[in-house]
């Protein structure tokens, strides 16, 4: 009986396996990839935070405070003079060294500000719709809580990082997708058809990859009127840039296609009368899925970093609008690295995001071939 049951179950499992659609199998395989799953959760969390950014961030982007310029992260205490009073912060006092004139921030133990959940703070629109002033956490009136310290204009870096993710997790993604899709399609066409079409597309690729991007950025950012918000300017520029940055991928796709189009199964498909598009998308692209996924997962950090480069050249997003690129660019000074190392924290956000995308890519790659 028991044996029968086990056998039945095995059989059912086997049947399930053979009957299941490719997608189900891929999902299953992906789920087995622990790192990819963990990364998916991390990325999900990051996007969740970005979505509720205005609610989670205790301060907004224009909360300048002259009393905490370049202040280090505040310590969160539980006990005051040995007595438990729950999470709280002390007041911050700025002093200058009388000899060297250096700034120092010390805790003022006379002032206690309790950390509160769901407090009222600056007003904002959740999802751009619901007007509210409730923030996830905050401290009592008069105190400041700086989880990641303050920047050179006395703003909370933690809030800026959270709100910056709204830009950095979306726009580069859009840019990467555009050039990814263009790269596959155009490269695919060139590689699949070959001949004159290939020649023309290859020459276009050559010409485009010789295009200087810096004057293009300069011209673009100069021609966009000042009353358009910088984030939108950045979006436009990203889109335009991604319309010329597909060339690298296209060349590689082309190379791959040339070597694949004479394979037996493609020939077979062709003879069987499968449409060209179907052959490209269904039969050829999966043939080097791994590379494509790698290219996409490398493309996203490329775009995030690209944004920092634009900020470096003075062409990207400008404060008060914030992205991770802006924060990294602000940290790019000896003084920040030596004296205010907390300004480097956003770097870890970028690294975590990039790694998460990559591991998910790994998982997808494994899952893409579920019959293995």
């Amino acid at each position, binding site marked *: 009986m028991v044996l029968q049951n086990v056998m039945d179950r095995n059989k059912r499992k086997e049947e399930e396996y053979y009957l299941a659609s490719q997608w189900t199998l891929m999902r299953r395989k992906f789920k087995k990839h622990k790192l990819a799953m963990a990364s998916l959760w991390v990325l999900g969390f990051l996007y969740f935070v970005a979505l509720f950014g205005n609610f989670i961030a205790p301060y907004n982007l224009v909360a300048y405070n002259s009393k905490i310029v370049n202040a280090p992260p505040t310590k969160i205490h539980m006990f005051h003079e040995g007595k438990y009073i729950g999470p709280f912060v002390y007041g911050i006092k700025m002093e200058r060294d009388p000899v060297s004139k250096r700034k120092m921030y010390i805790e003022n133990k006379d002032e206690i500000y309790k950390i509160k959940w769901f407090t009222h703070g600056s007003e904002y629109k959740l999802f751009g719709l619901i007007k509210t002033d409730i923030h996830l956490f905050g401290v009592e009136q008069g105190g400041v809580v700086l989880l990641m310290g303050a920047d050179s204009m006395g703003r909370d870096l933690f809030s800026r990082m959270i709100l910056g993710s709204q830009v950095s997790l979306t726009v580069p993604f859009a840019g990467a997708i555009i050039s990814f899709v263009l790269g596959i399609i155009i490269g695919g066409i060139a590689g699949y058809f*070959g*001949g004159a079409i290939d*020649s023309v597309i290859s*020459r276009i*690729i*050559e*010409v485009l*990859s*010789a*295009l*200087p991007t*810096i*004057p293009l950025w*300069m*011209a673009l950012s*100069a021609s966009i009127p000042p009353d358009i918000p910088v984030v939108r300017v950045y979006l436009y520029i990203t889109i335009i840039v991604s319309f010329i940055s597909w060339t*690298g991928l296209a*060349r*590689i796709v082309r*190379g*791959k296609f*040339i*070597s*694949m*189009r*004479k*394979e037996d199964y493609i020939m077979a498909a062709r003879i069987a009368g499968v449409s060209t598009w179907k052959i490209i998308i269904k039969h050829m692209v999966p043939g*080097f*899925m*791994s*590379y494509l*996924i*790698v290219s996409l997962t*490398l493309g996203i*950090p490329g775009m*995030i*970093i690209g944004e*920092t*480069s634009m900020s*470096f*050249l003075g062409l990207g997003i400008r404060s008060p609008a914030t992205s991770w*690129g802006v924060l*990294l*660019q602000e*940290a*790019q000074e*000896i003084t920040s*690295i*030596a004296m205010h190392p907390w300004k*480097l924290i956003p*770097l870890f956000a*970028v*690294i975590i*995001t*990039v*790694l998460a995308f*990559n591991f998910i890519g790994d998982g997808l*790659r494994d899952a893409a*071939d579920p019959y*293995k």
Partner: protein
Amino acid sequence: MRDYILKRILMFIPTVLLMSVIVFFIIQLPPGDYITSYVSRMSAEGEVFTSEDIARLREQYGLDKPWYIQYFKWMKNIITEGDFGYSFAYNRPVWTVIMSRLPLTVTVTLIIMIFTYLVSLPIGLYSALHQYSVGDFIFTGIGFLGLATPNFLLAIILMFASFKLTGDPLIGLFSEEILREGLKLSNLGSFLKHLIIPIVVIGTSNTCGVIRTIRAQMLDEITRQYVLTARAKGVSENTIIYKYCLRAALNPVVSGLAGSLSSLFSGSTISAIVMNMAILGPVLYEALKTQDMYLAGTILLTQGILVVIGTLLSDIVLAWLDPRIRYAERSS
């Protein structure tokens, strides 16, 4: 194959010409021209310019004509006399300016490129053959650390760290001694020391891409049926990996070589600025900013030619690597 190469060489000239037109057009797209920046610099020094003066200056520099006329004049001089024009800002022939930096640019970029491939090919292979091993994770982690850190930030962190640890921030490619006396055998060590930060900064950002590409490609290839067949036939594992898989896996890396060749010329501009590397990238950047058209144009044109040559070379190598492509070319 020979016909194919011949055909490609014939295509070379129209491609480059088209490229030069577009490049020249884009250079002058940003507002203003060289005279604008010249006049602004001079008025900061107390010069008074009337609109007549400015018009005269434009005429003197040949900037009063539309861009295509300027382009034709430039092209004509290049073709008939091999004269690439004068750099406004340097007041030197463009070619002199470029040549003064070219040897170093090529040397440094080649060193970095060789380093990138020397490091990333074995690591990529290792990662693929030992997928999800500790080593794989460590290399992936380091690779992405390098990729995710903006070069300029990494450079400045490393320079500061070097200052804190050794007292010498290792700025630029040369120590003051080399700058004074030139590069000699006796100070080669100091030059190599100064190469560490550029290699780490530019190298890491490139290695990650190559490592991940090789790794993914290898993972694809290893599971192919021909590998199974080869194994079944008793072909040695080394032959399978190195003779068959790796060869196929190199395809995208080789396809990407075209870009690498052009980056020899003016790549990593921002890194070069932050690390004070006296290579062509920053020169191009300055030239673009001040609209020093002939200098920028010549650098970009040369770079474009390198792209075309690089594409041709990489196509030839691709064909050599992959017989299927060879046949495809032949049949088309």
